């Protein structure tokens, strides 16, 4: 029969290649990738372009941008170089974005997967806990955590992760509740595959794409949350972070708006790049959503 022998002439394109092709089709996503690459490059090369401690005195305080060659973005009220702050701050922002996201997604996956897969009372208990976390305004909870553990970068990152897991958890749970009814899960159970293996090896890879897309949202919110904390003066003062720069630049907003606007634009672009890439990832990973 002709149908039994499939036409295997078509070379099976690798998954990555297919996804890249779909991603690339979204021009905005490519723009996002470019911005993100620029931010990543800035983080990577911060030590090369602006060597030394970005917090050290680099020139006359409040030098406006484009007036002194050594500090093309100007200096803040303690004479710290803003360009150095932006470049080194990229490290902090990316670090916060990535680590906080990994934490929140990891917690979210664990809780969502267990709740969604097992259902019943386990689901009830986990969902009550999730609701409790969701009920307390996350920023207020974050403020409390920072009050408890201090404004160190570590506690801020963990804090952001801990207050942002509920949305991924609900999302993973919903995915699991749908996927656990799919026949391939029954098929695996029918083969005698254990629960843990079904959760993490069978269902999770299928539940991941929307979560990965959502991760770009979490990453963006993480950066915004850190900057809001720093804006209130609760950032970690040991590092040049964009939030810290805005928080302090605010005091000289009228006199030297560039101290606020430059890091503000940096945040805006970075968050924008995450969202744009998120859209592209959505195209790449969930092609059925867009015909």
């Amino acid at each position, binding site marked *: 029969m002709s149908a039994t022998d499939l036409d295997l002439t078509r070379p099976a394109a690798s998954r990555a290649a297919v996804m890249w092709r779909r991603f690339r089709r979204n021009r905005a996503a490519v723009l996002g990738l470019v911005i993100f690459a620029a931010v990543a490059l800035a983080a990577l090369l911060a030590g090369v372009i602006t060597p030394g*401690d970005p*917090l*050290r*005195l680099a020139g006359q*305080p409040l030098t406006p941008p484009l007036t002194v060659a050594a500090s093309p973005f100007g200096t803040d*009220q*303690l*004479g710290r170089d803003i360009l150095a702050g932006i470049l080194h701050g990229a490290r902090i922002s990316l670090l916060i974005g990535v680590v906080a996201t990994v934490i929140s997604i990891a917690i979210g996956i664990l809780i969502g997967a267990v709740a969604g897969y097992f259902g019943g009372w386990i689901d009830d208990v986990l969902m009550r806990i999730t609701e409790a976390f969701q009920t307390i305004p996350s920023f207020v909870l974050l403020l409390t955590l920072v*009050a408890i553990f*201090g*404004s*160190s970068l570590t506690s801020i990152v963990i804090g952001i992760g801990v207050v942002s897991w509920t949305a991924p958890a609900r999302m993973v749970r919903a995915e699991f509740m749908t996927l656990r009814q799919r026949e391939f899960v029954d098929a695996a159970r029918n083969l005698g595959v254990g629960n843990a293996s079904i959760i993490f090896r069978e269902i999770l890879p299928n539940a991941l794409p929307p979560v990965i897309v959502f991760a770009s949202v979490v990453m963006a919110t993480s950066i915004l949350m850190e900057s809001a904390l720093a804006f209130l*003066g*609760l*950032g*970690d*003062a*040991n590092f040049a972070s964009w939030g810290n720069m805005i928080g*302090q630049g*605010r*005091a*000289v*907003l*009228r*006199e*030297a708006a560039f101290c606020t606007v430059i890091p503000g634009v940096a945040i805006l672009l970075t968050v924008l790049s995450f969202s744009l890439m998120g859209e592209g990832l959505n195209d790449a990973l969930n092609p059925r959503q867009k015909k």
Partner: protein
Amino acid sequence: MQTPLTRLLSAAGALALALPAFAQETPPEVKRGGTIFSHIIAEQGVLNPALRASTGVYQITGKMIEPLIDKTYDGYVGVLATEWSSSADGKAITFKLRDGVRWHDGEPFSCDDVAYSAMNLWKPLLNYSSTLQANLESVDCPDPLTAVFNYSHPMPLALMVAAMPDLGHPVPKHLYEGTDILKNPHNQAPIGTGPFKFQEYERGQYIIAVRNDDYWRGKEYPYLDRVIWRIIPDKAAAAAALEAGELHESPFNGLSMADLERLGNDPRFDMGTKGFENNVAHETVEFNLRNPILADVRVRQAIYHGLDTDFAIKTIMRGYAKPGRGPIPSAGGENYTDDVPTYPYDPAKARAMLDEAGYPADANGVRFKLRHRPAPWGEYTTLWSQYYAQAMKEIGIEVELLTNDTPGFLNGVYRDHDFDTANGWHQFRSDPAVSTTVWLRSGAPAGTAWSNQFGYESAEMDSLIDAAAEELDPAKRADLYHQIQRLEMTDLPVIFAIEHPFIGITSKKLINHHNTPRWDSSSWYDLWIDE
């Protein structure tokens, strides 16, 4: 014992003379009426200066509740008291009270109110006053207008007088007696004798006080109809409000330095430190001597040499400050001296001293690391802590900043002593004995804020402090304080790096503003608005 008494009496007399003089000085075209909008940065839970001694409280209650004595540029003048004197042994201080003063509810003011306030509020409930009045045994009222304070140990009259503007506010006995004082509703709706009467407190928004038509200084006072304080915690918002004409004045660094300087150049505003002389504070670097590195005085001195206070004054305080010379600020009057050891900025020397102390730099240029707790008291302290960290890096000390909120900071520093260095403010309260020397004396229980967190123990310092507290002769007293200053600048448990008054900004429409050294805490009876 005669000299101080005479001088103080004459000061009181001067007020009596000054009163008509003031009236004459006031231009004839004084305009009556109008409302003043003043900025207050923090919400006040309690509007009772006999329960809460802080400028935030005085700023509001000063208009409604008057002290026994106030401080002017001409010295201490009587407000609710007219004369004061001390017994020879210094154990009894007598106040003559002003006649014809009535509380806002119409009841007459008398010695009963003073005695009640002193025994039931000042001594047990008022912060700092508890220390000041620790030895107060009773207050006698030989007649309704005479109050005699009896002490078990000698109480220097100068100390008592200097403390009274802040810690000497009587409240009406008839409204407090028999109630739970801390929950008395008048703590939020004060009844006083001042030129303005409390009208309304809208939480988080504003407080309104209106003219007291029955003010003891005469029917012509006050000139204003109304004072409204707007609560704006955000400095940038306050700056914009001031600029938009929604505020007339913002005291106590209520705006950021940048905005103060910018608006100071605006012809519509007066900006400066005038009127804040009584509220001087130090930016500090505080050491934990329990750390063996910092226990070495050479290290502490080297750190002082590593600090470019002039740079910090210029960038952080925009020049509105001067280098500190120990625990007593230059505003401290006769108790102040500048004859003390100093540690000018000299990073090379600082490095050499650190080398000598046995802390050479490693391959990365780092000698040792310090965990630093910056106080969250706003712009100055935050920037100063960051400057400190930068400056230390230059001399090879790595500083890690451990940022916390107020309770976290106070706990870390004062209760747990979990810090190597810290920075914050120290506010000078008229006399070193009120709150300054407590800081340097050993033996305070752990956990009390602004008590010796350094682990600094010096028998010499302790005995100097104790002696000064009971010394009745002003000259000898001053000399003891000079010794204390010198000893502190030698032992250096804390660096009083920069001395700065507060800065205020005021619309030029206000006439007679900032005409006393604690103007924003004063009653504003002579303030008027030209519009």
